[in-house]
C-alpha cells in the first residue's frame, strides 16, 4: 500500500510570529490516494501548518517538497497552481458573489479576442454546476453565497478543489458545523478524492472521523510532530496521550459540587429567527455548560442575556426578581459579564496596554454594585488603575513584561486572561465565557480552566459556552445541548457519555431530527465517484 512515493513531504518546518514559536519542527509525508490525519489540540499549530502549505505564510526554516522538488510559494496562487488546495475550517467565501464565482474566483474561464478577453459566464456557470453536482449539492451555481448554510458553503469549497484538478486537498476541520448525516455524505466525498489519486490531509479532532476515512496519522503537539503511524495499528487512547502529552485528568481541575441557591432563572427566552423557548436556571457556584455545533444559536442566546440582541422575548429573573435587560448597561449593573468568543474583534483592544485593557470595563461600564471606582472625583486615578491591573495580573497569573505592555505583545492564552480580567474588575456575579479556550495552547487552557474553578469556588456562577466536548464534560456541573436554536437536551456531569451528547447536538438521537436542505441530496454524494476520473 505504501509503494507509491510521497507526493508532498515536509521536512523540519519552523514558523515564528514575534515571541510565539508556532511551529517547531514538523515532518510529514502525503501519498497519492491516501488520507493522512493531522491530529492535535487547538493551538498545536495545525492552522499555521495549513497556511504554510497554501502559501499564505512562508516557513522560517525547513523544506516543502512536491514530487521530491523543494518548493517556495510566493503566494496563495502559486500553491494552487502547484495543485495544493485547502478547504478551510471557517469558510473563507465572498458572500456577495455567486457560488460559481466563488468556485472560479481568480481563474474564471475567459473568451474573446486578445486584449478584449471577457469572462465566459455561461461556461463558468455550467462548469461550476457540474462540480457542485458531483459533490451532491442541491442548489444552483448562480445562488449568492450569502443565502447558503455553512454546510452548503463547505460543498462549494470542495467543488472548488475538484474543479482545480487538485493533487493535494487539505481538509481543515471541515465537519465542525455539519450534522451527523452530512458528515457521512462527507466521508463519501473523501473516499472519492482518494480513489482519484488525490493526497488528502485531513485535520480534525474527532476520532471517529479519523478512523473512518484516514490511512495514516501524524500527531502535532506544541508545534512539533510527536508521532506518526498507520491508522489500523493505532487506538484512541494512544492518540489522545500523544496529543495531550499528559493524561486528560491532569488538564482539568476538579470542580467540587458546591452549588448554592438559584441565582438566575430564564424562562421562554426566544428570538424570531435565532432561538426559541430557552428555559434554564443557574445556581450560585455552578458551571453551566452550553454545548452544540457551531451556529447552534448558543452565542446568540448569550448576547440576548447581555442586552446585545434586539427583538428578544422571555422572562429573566435574578434572585427571584424580574430583570429588564434592554441594553448591556442593564445586564452589567445586575452583575452579568460576558467574555466574547472572538477575542480580538469583540474582546481586547490590541494596541492598548494590558493595564488599560483591564481597567476598560470598570472605567467605561455603568456603576454596578461591586464596581471598583477608578476615579477620584471627575479625574481618573492612575494609582487605582495601576493597582487594579497589578492585582489582576497576579490573580490570573498573566505572563507579560509589565502592565504597560501592549496587549498585542502577549500570547493568545494571556490575551484571553486579560479579557477575562477586564470583566472581573466589575466584580460580577455571573460570568459568561464564550469559547474561552479557542485557539490557545494546552498550557494556557489549563490556566483558564483553573481560573474558572477558582471563580466558582468564590461563589460566582459561570456559563461556559463551548464546542469542545471534553471541556464541558469535565468542567460543567450541568450541560445544556442546543441544536438549531432549540434546547434539545440537558445532562448532569457524569450522566452521559460523549456519544450521547454529540448525538443530541447533531440530531441523531432519533425523534424529530431537523434536516437541512443539504442532507436531502445524500445519494448524490456517493454516486459521483466513478465519473470524476474520466
Amino acid at each position, binding site marked *: 500500500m505504501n509503494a507509491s512515493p510521497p507526493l508532498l513531504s515536509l521536512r523540519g518546518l519552523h514558523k515564528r510570529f514575534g515571541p510565539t514559536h508556532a511551529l517547531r519542527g514538523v515532518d510529514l509525508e502525503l501519498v497519492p490516494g491516501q488520507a493522512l490525519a493531522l491530529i492535535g489540540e487547538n493551538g498545536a499549530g495545525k492552522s499555521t501548518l495549513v497556511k504554510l502549505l497554501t502559501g499564505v505564510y512562508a516557513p522560517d526554516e525547513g523544506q516543502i517538497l512536491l514530487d521530491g522538488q523543494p518548493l517556495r510559494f510566493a503566494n496563495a496562487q502559486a500553491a494552487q497552481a502547484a495543485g495544493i488546495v485547502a478547504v478551510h475550517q471557517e469558510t473563507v467565501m*465572498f458572500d*456577495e458573489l455567486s457560488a460559481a464565482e466563488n468556485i472560479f*474566483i481568480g481563474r474564471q474561464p475567459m473568451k474573446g479576442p486578445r486584449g478584449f478577453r471577457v469572462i465566459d459566464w455561461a461556461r463558468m456557470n455550467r462548469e461550476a454546476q457540474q462540480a457542485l453536482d458531483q459533490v451532491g449539492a*442541491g442548489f444552483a451555481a448562480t445562488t449568492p453565497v450569502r443565502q447558503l448554510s455553512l454546510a452548503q458553503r463547505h460543498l462549494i469549497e470542495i467543488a472548488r478543489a475538484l474543479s482545480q484538478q487538485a493533487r493535494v486537498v487539505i481538509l481543515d476541520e471541515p465537519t465542525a458545523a455539519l450534522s451527523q448525516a452530512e458528515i457521512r455524505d462527507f466521508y463519501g466525498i473523501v473516499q472519492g478524492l482518494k480513489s482519484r489519486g488525490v493526497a488528502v490531509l485531513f485535520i480534525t479532532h474527532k476520532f471517529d472521523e479519523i478512523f473512518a476515512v484516514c490511512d495514516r496519522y501524524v500527531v502535532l503537539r506544541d508545534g512539533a510532530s510527536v508521532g506518526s503511524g498507520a491508522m489500523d495499528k493505532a487506538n484512541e487512547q494512544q492518540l489522545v496521550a500523544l496529543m495531550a502529552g499528559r493524561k486528560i485528568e491532569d488538564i482539568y481541575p476538579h470542580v467540587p459540587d458546591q452549588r448554592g441557591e438559584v441565582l438566575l432563572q430564564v424562562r421562554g427566552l426566544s428570538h424570531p429567527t435565532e432561538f426559541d423557548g430557552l428555559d434554564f436556571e443557574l445556581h450560585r457556584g455552578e458551571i453551566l455548560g452550553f454545548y452544540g455545533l457551531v*451556529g447552534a444559536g448558543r452565542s446568540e442566546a448569550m448576547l440576548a442575556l447581555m442586552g446585545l440582541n434586539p427583538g428578544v422575548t422571555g422572562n429573566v429573573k435574578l434572585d427571584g426578581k424580574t430583570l429588564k435587560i434592554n441594553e448591556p448597561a442593564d445586564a452589567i449593573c445586575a452583575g452579568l459579564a460576558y467574555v466574547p468568543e472572538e477575542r480580538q474583534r469583540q474582546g481586547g483592544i490590541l494596541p492598548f496596554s494590558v493595564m488599560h485593557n483591564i481597567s476598560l470595563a470598570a472605567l467605561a461600564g455603568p456603576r454596578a454594585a461591586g464596581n471598583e471606582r477608578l476615579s477620584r472625583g471627575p479625574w481618573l486615578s492612575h494609582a487605582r488603575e495601576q493597582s487594579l491591573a497589578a492585582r489582576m495580573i497576579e490573580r490570573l497569573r498573566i505572563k507579560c513584561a509589565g502592565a504597560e505592555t501592549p496587549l498585542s505583545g502577549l500570547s493568545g492564552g494571556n490575551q484571553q486572561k486579560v479579557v477575562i480580567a477586564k470583566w472581573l474588575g466589575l466584580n460580577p456575579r455571573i460570568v459568561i465565557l464564550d469559547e474561552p479556550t479557542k485557539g490557545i495552547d494546552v498550557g494556557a487552557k489549563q490556566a483558564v480552566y483553573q481560573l474558572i474553578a477558582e471563580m466558582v469556588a468564590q461563589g460566582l456562577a459561570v456559563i461556559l459556552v463551548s464546542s469542545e466536548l471534553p471541556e464541558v464534560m469535565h468542567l460543567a456541573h450541568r450541560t445544556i445541548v442546543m441544536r438549531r436554536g432549540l434546547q434539545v437536551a440537558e445532562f448532569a456531569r457524569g450522566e452521559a457519555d460523549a456519544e450521547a451528547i454529540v448525538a443530541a447536538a447533531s440530531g441523531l438521537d432519533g425523534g424529530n431530527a431537523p434536516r437541512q436542505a443539504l442532507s436531502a441530496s445524500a445519494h448524490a454524494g456517493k454516486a459521483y465517484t466513478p465519473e470524476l476520473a474520466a
Partner: protein
Amino acid sequence: MKHTAAFISRRDGVLLAIIAVVAIAVGLRAPVFLTLRNALDIANDSAILAILVMGQMLVLLTRGVDLSAASNLALTGMLCALAGRAWPGLPLPALLALAAVIGALLGAVNGVLITAFSLPPIVVTLGTLSAYRGAIFLASGGAWISDHQIHPLIKGLPRETWLGLPALLWLALLAVAATAWLLRWRREGRELYALGGNPSAATYAGIPVNRRVMTAYTLSGLFAGISGLLWVGRYSIAFTELAAGYELTVIAACVIGGVSIAGGIGSVTGAVLGVLFIGVVNGALPVIQVSPFWQQAIAGAVILFSVALNARSQARGVRQILETKHTAVTAGVAA
C-alpha cells in the same frame, strides 16, 4: 440603458421611483422642469459627477475611499490649463491624454502609499487632498487662469454636440460603459468585489490584492483627471479652490446609489441613479424658487435622508438558525 435595465434590482427600482416622484412633483409646480431641454441640462450638469462617481465607486468597492478626487480634478485641470496657455498648438487628443496621465499618476500615488506602507486609505487620501490642493497654488502662483487664457479646445469640448447629444454626456456614458464592462466582464472587476467583501478570503484565493487596489486608485485618479479638463473647459476658469469639497458630493452620490462604504457591494446602475438623484435635486431647487441660502441645506438634508433610508434597507440580514417553513420547503424540493 436597456442593457442595465435588465439587471435593475429592487433597491434601484425604489431609487428610480423616488427620482420620478421628485421630478413630477417639481414639474407640477413648474412645468418647465419636465421639458426635454431641462432634462438635457440636468444630464449635462451631472455628467462630470457621473465620471467621478465611477472612479470613486471602484475605490469604495475595495473598502477604501478616495477623498483626493476633487483635489486631483483641480490640480489636473490647472496643469492642463497652464499647458494649454503655454502651448496654444496642442491638439485635443494630446490635452485629453495629458489629463488622463496626470490624473492616473496622482491616483497611483494614493495606491502606492496605501499598498506599500499598509496605510489606511482615509488617511492617505486626506493627506493627498491637501497636498494636491497645495500643489495647485505652487503651479499657478495663486493666480487665476481666466476665460481668455484657457485653450480654445478645452473650452470647446464641453460645448460640442455629437449626434444630437452634448459631448459631456457622451463622455459620461463612455465612462459608465467602461466601468460596467470592467465590473461585469473582467476578472479584475470581479476581484474588486471579492477583496472588498472579504479581504482575508481574497488572500487565500490568491487574488493579487495590492495590484487590484492599485488599479482602483489609479482608475479613480484617471477619471478625476479627465473630469478636471472637462470642469475647466465647462466653467472656463482654473484656480486654487476649484471644485473644493466636491469629493463629498461624489461620495454622497455613491452612497445614495447603494455603493457600500464597507466595501464589496455596489452596482453601476445604482451609482448612476445616485448621480441622477443629486442632479434632479440640485436642478429642482432653483426651479421652485428656493432661496440659494436654503438650497445647500435642503440638498444636504435630502441626501442624509436618502442615505438613512438606504442604511435601513441594507441592514444585515438576521441569522436564520431556527428552522422555518421556508427551509423545510426547500428541502422537499431538493429531494
